């Protein structure tokens, strides 16, 4: 009885708190759940919340003489936060779609616009990239990727430079992929 009445209260209370949080959130910032229950089921999880203070602290420890650190330093200039939730499972679709959809529900116009929607029915992979624009200036970016055994939400808050974000490709240990019609780089081998 006690459990039932408690559960009865929790869902509407959570919805109320979320809407209050959303109303108070600066532009570009998503309200991301902690996904505790999901993290327990996952074989790997990444949970990163870097607010402006932590971003500033991290920037102070980036080594400008290291190419990777230098790229990171450039990219985070002007950013107000980076938030990542990423979970990997050992079975297909072990994560409830409803939880991912709850985050997607925040990415509605007019504040958010979808830049890219990429679906692969063969691989059951879906990636959406949204940008939050305030008076024509990008104030945030959201990437939601769902794969059979992994789902990831990335939220970058602040004046994100999309051109610099594109330069990320190949910098953080991910090989450059030659894109057709992109004038593939002379440093691509094996092509």
């Amino acid at each position, binding site marked *: 009885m006690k459990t039932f009445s408690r559960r009865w209260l929790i869902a509407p209370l959570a919805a109320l708190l979320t809407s209050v949080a959303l109303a108070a959130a600066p532009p570009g910032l998503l309200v991301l759940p902690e996904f505790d229950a999901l993290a327990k089921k996952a074989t790997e999880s990444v949970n990163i919340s870097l607010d402006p203070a932590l971003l500033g602290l991290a920037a102070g420890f980036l080594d400008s003489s290291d190419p990777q650190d230098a790229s990171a330093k450039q990219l985070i200039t002007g950013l107000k936060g980076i938030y990542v939730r990423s979970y990997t499972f050992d079975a297909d679709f072990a994560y409830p779609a409803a939880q991912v959809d709850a985050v997607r529900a925040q990415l509605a116009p007019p504040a958010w616009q979808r830049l890219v*929607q*990429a679906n692969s029915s063969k691989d059951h992979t879906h990636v959406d990239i949204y940008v939050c624009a305030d008076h024509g200036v990008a104030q945030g970016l959201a990437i939601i990727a769902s794969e059979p055994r992994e789902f990831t939400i990335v939220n970058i808050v602040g004046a994100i430079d999309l051109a610099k974000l594109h330069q990320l490709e190949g910098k953080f240990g991910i090989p450059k992929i030659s894109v057709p019609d992109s004038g593939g780089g002379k440093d691509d081998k094996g092509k």
Partner: protein
Amino acid sequence: MSDDRHDDMEIDPLERQLRAALKPRDPPEGFAAGVMARIAAEPAGPRRARHSPAVAGWVGFGLAASVVLSVLLAHQWQVRRIEQGREARRQLLEALRVTDEKLDLTYRVVNAQPRAALPQHSGA
């Protein structure tokens, strides 16, 4: 990765082939002699672990102790701050790595499709 997936990967032919291709190789003849020749040119032997000399002295013991204590506290704070900074940096690089990975995934999915129409964005 769970242990079961790790075991599954062990019978992957590519992994077997990688192990075969990456069998360690001997350096050229005379390698060790070359190292020792360079060492012979070094001025001194391998440095032994040194022990700090004991601090002796009775004069100003109380003052010295409080100076040491405040230096230790400041050092501890600094060490903690450095640890926090390094952890923040590590988390930042990990966040950017995940972002990079998902952007890469997007490119691959988009480019695997023949001229798939992308939703028009009104510009950000």
